[in-house]
């Protein structure tokens, strides 16, 4: 029995365990400092300074040189604050779901990292270990799991994350939370489709679900963002929507839903939601880097090729991959502080009327290109240009047919006071003249 278990432990097992153990903590650290980064970036964008007080000196004099220090101790202080705050659950909440929901949010966000191929392959030297005997002497993948279903696994896991949000909204016994949870669900359903379509188009060309093979393809044929910029754009946008990130963070829209699904959450449970949100963002960015930005590969630098499998190469690759992920996270933060949150109907309209048709077009054109065997850089760029032209013409034609939308892009709800049915008399204010002291609702038709 024990013999069998020991036989299971080979070089790949040890490396995978190490990568997982380090990776989870690295991601958690990245999440904590992601919050700090977000605050800093938003501050500079808004001409402020951001956190700059909490150094890492812990009040000790011999660490005085770390005082201030760009407030690098801020995430630590925030974490301690979350732990010592009162863990409050309101009356009449569904206690079990209320406690489980943050867990449902965090776990899928964290286990998605398993398949990210941080360091490519490592030709492991032979090592003699007590109890296990000789180990290594083979090429092992520096990732949690080097599986053939990598991309499918990541997709499946990433979309479970919305359960946490919806359950939290349901369990809170609060209308705002409920609405936030529902919005998250609807948004997830809508944006999974264009995400899947753009992903499918990319995978048609890549020809593999295996993360390492995807990167190898990109090393040989150039990064996918160059040959499929439109799919990349669509994928990144949908990734933001999947991660409930601005400008698609309708599930927690502070102005409308006072915090949405986490209105009733406090203390560590809220911190878990926070963690899940940022972990989702990091996963999404790692996914994007893997699919479109060549993973650990840098052009012209031989050590980042899949062919070099030395220990140094592994560390360089991990560094390159992590740097790309952090840069994409920074970009998502700039997006957040640039674009205002879209109104909910606009989000849905963008999803169903723009993103999904565009995704279908990309899929069809890419399929044709694959059928013709023209999947190298130049023909694909031509195809992308054609797609862009087709989309612009379609936009123009629809604008001609249905009239140009205003900046408001209001969806007409027939029968409402803004879009009355034919011959309908709209009465918006109170019918009693004495009660009409107040300002009438804008857009009303004066009757009475």
């Amino acid at each position, binding site marked *: 029995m024990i013999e069998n278990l020991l036989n299971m432990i080979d070089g790949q097992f040890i490396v995978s365990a190490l990568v997982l153990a380090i990776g989870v903590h690295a991601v958690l650290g990245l999440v904590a400092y992601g919050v700090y980064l977000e605050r800093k*970036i938003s501050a*500079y*964008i*808004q*001409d*402020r*300074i951001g956190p700059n007080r909490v150094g890492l000196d812990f009040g000790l004099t011999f660490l005085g040189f770390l005082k201030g220090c760009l407030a690098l101790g801020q995430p630590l202080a925030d974490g301690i604050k979350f732990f010592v705050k009162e863990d409050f659950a309101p009356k009449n909440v569904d206690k079990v779901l209320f406690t489980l929901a943050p867990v449902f949010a965090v776990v899928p966000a964290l286990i998605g990292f398993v398949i990210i191929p941080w360091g490519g392959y490592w030709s492991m030297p032979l090592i003699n270990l007590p109890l296990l005997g000789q180990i290594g002497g083979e090429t092992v993948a520096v990732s949690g799991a080097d599986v053939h279903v990598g991309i499918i696994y990541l997709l499946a896991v990433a979309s479970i994350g919305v359960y946490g949000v919806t359950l939290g909204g349901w369990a809170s016994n609060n209308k705002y939370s409920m609405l936030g949870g529902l919005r998250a669900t609807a948004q997830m359903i809508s944006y999974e489709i264009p995400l899947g379509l753009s992903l499918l188009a990319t995978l048609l060309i890549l020809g593999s679900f295996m993360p390492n093979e995807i990167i190898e393809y990109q090393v040989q044929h150039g990064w996918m963002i160059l040959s499929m910029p439109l799919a990349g*754009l669509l994928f990144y946008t949908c990734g933001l929507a999947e991660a409930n990130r601005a400008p698609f963070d309708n599930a927690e829209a502070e102005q409308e839903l006072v915090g949405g699904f986490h209105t009733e959450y406090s203390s560590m449970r809220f911190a878990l939601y926070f963690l899940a949100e940022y972990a989702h963002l990091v996963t999404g960015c790692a996914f994007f880097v893997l699919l479109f930005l060549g993973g650990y590969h840098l052009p012209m630098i031989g050590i980042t090729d899949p062919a070099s499998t030395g220990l140094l190469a592994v560390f360089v690759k991990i560094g390159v991959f992590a740097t790309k992920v952090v840069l994409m996270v920074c970009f998502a933060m*700039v997006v957040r*502080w*640039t*674009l205002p949150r879209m109104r909910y109907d606009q989000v849905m309209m963008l999803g169903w009327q723009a993103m999904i048709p565009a995704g279908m077009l990309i899929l069809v054109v890419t399929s044709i290109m694959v059928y013709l065997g023209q999947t190298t850089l130049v023909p694909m760029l031509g195809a992308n240009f054609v797609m862009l032209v087709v*989309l*612009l013409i379609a*936009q*123009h034609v629809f*604008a001609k047919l249905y*009239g*140009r*939308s*205003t*900046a*408001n*892009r209001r969806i007409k709800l027939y029968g409402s006071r803004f879009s009355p049915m034919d011959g309908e008399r709209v009465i918006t204010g109170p019918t009693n003249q004495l009660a*009409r*002291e*107040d*300002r*009438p609702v*804008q*857009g009303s038709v*004066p009757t009475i």
Partner: protein
Amino acid sequence: MPIKDEDIITITPAPMSTSEAVYFPSIIKGFGTTLRHFFTSFGQGHTSRTIQYPEQRREHYTPEQGGMEKSNFRGVHRLNRDGAGRVKCVACMMCPTICPANCIHIEAAESPWDDREKYPAKFEIDELRCIFCGMCEEACPVDAIELTPLYDVVGESRQEMVYDKNKLLHVYDITIDQKPM
């Protein structure tokens, strides 16, 4: 007064141009704006508007630089003293009457001095209720109550933030240099 219907202007937003309707050109323009601000204010660059509060204070700057004008700033109250060092107040009850927050409580008593009939035996201002509107200052017929440029007042309890006569006179002593009567 209801707003007349002919006074209501219904605004119809202009239709979007093509670049706005396909979003991305406008979004890239937006990135330009945010990144310009990011790089010009990076590390307290020239567009940064922050005053590092406990070290730098608004008093140190002129109003043009974003500082504060001390002569008409409405901070914590003080009770002025007259030439003989006595409280100037005559307990006329104008300030508690005008106070919209009902935060001034005065108990008048017969004055021990010859030049007035009443004086405040008790004078309390609840600085937590006060909205710092400055109406008391305007109502006062003898310029006894004034608002000072002090704004960073703290207390460890609510009771501590109810300023009595001695405390208000003390505020006068420490602010008379900053804001002469």
